[in-house]
């Protein structure tokens, strides 16, 4: 049971390049989330999904797209990276564990846009 796995862990892009971050969970969770974390800001929600085939915008969705074609995977795409998207990105899923519902976080992806 791997939990929530994010790939890649680190990435450096040039302005205008595109990339996709992958989040995979093996716990059969319906809810999945993408956050970005910036110094002094806490976590901010980019997009989320309440089930396979569904996505919704969070607090800071501009410049990002997402897809949830399979229940276990939630992809975050940057079509044209900008320096303002330099951040640490966290994926999370939500589900039951030991009698209560909990959030499960990936280990994060450090993205730098030059």
């Amino acid at each position, binding site marked *: 049971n791997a939990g929530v796995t994010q790939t890649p862990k680190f990435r450096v892009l040039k302005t205008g390049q595109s990339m996709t971050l992958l989040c995979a969970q093996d716990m059969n969770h319906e809810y999945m989330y993408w956050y970005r974390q910036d110094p002094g800001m806490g976590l901010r929600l980019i997009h989320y999904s309440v089930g396979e085939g569904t996505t919704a915008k969070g*607090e800071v969705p501009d410049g990002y797209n997402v897809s949830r074609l399979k229940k276990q995977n939630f992809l975050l795409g940057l079509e044209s990276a900008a320096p303002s998207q330099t951040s640490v990105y966290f994926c999370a899923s939500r589900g039951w564990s030991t009698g209560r519902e909990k959030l499960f976080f990936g280990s994060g992806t450090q993205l730098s846009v030059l």
Partner: protein
Amino acid sequence: AQSVTQPDIHITVSEGASLELRCNYSYGATPYLFWYVQSPGQGLQLLLKYFSGDTLVQGIKGFEAEFKRSQSSFNLRKPSVHWSDAAEYFCAVADNYGQNFVFGPGTRLSVLP
């Protein structure tokens, strides 16, 4: 490594009553502390944060939290709860750089009319 406990799994209060949600942390240095709320079908929303300075922190939606170093606590309070406050609340601690978040298990709040 830091850790967070939220002793209450589920709390029920009447609308208009006061609220206090407990959070205890473990961290060797001065922590960065956060409270988040998650409403059904939504992601985490930041209510308030403490980095330094005044130990009583004001947040959005009428919430406040008090950092008590001697008790390793960061309890969330609201003087009068509204029905729309029914949600799950997460306390989190981060290291001195505001990174390496550790979340508590959450407290579910139900509000009676």
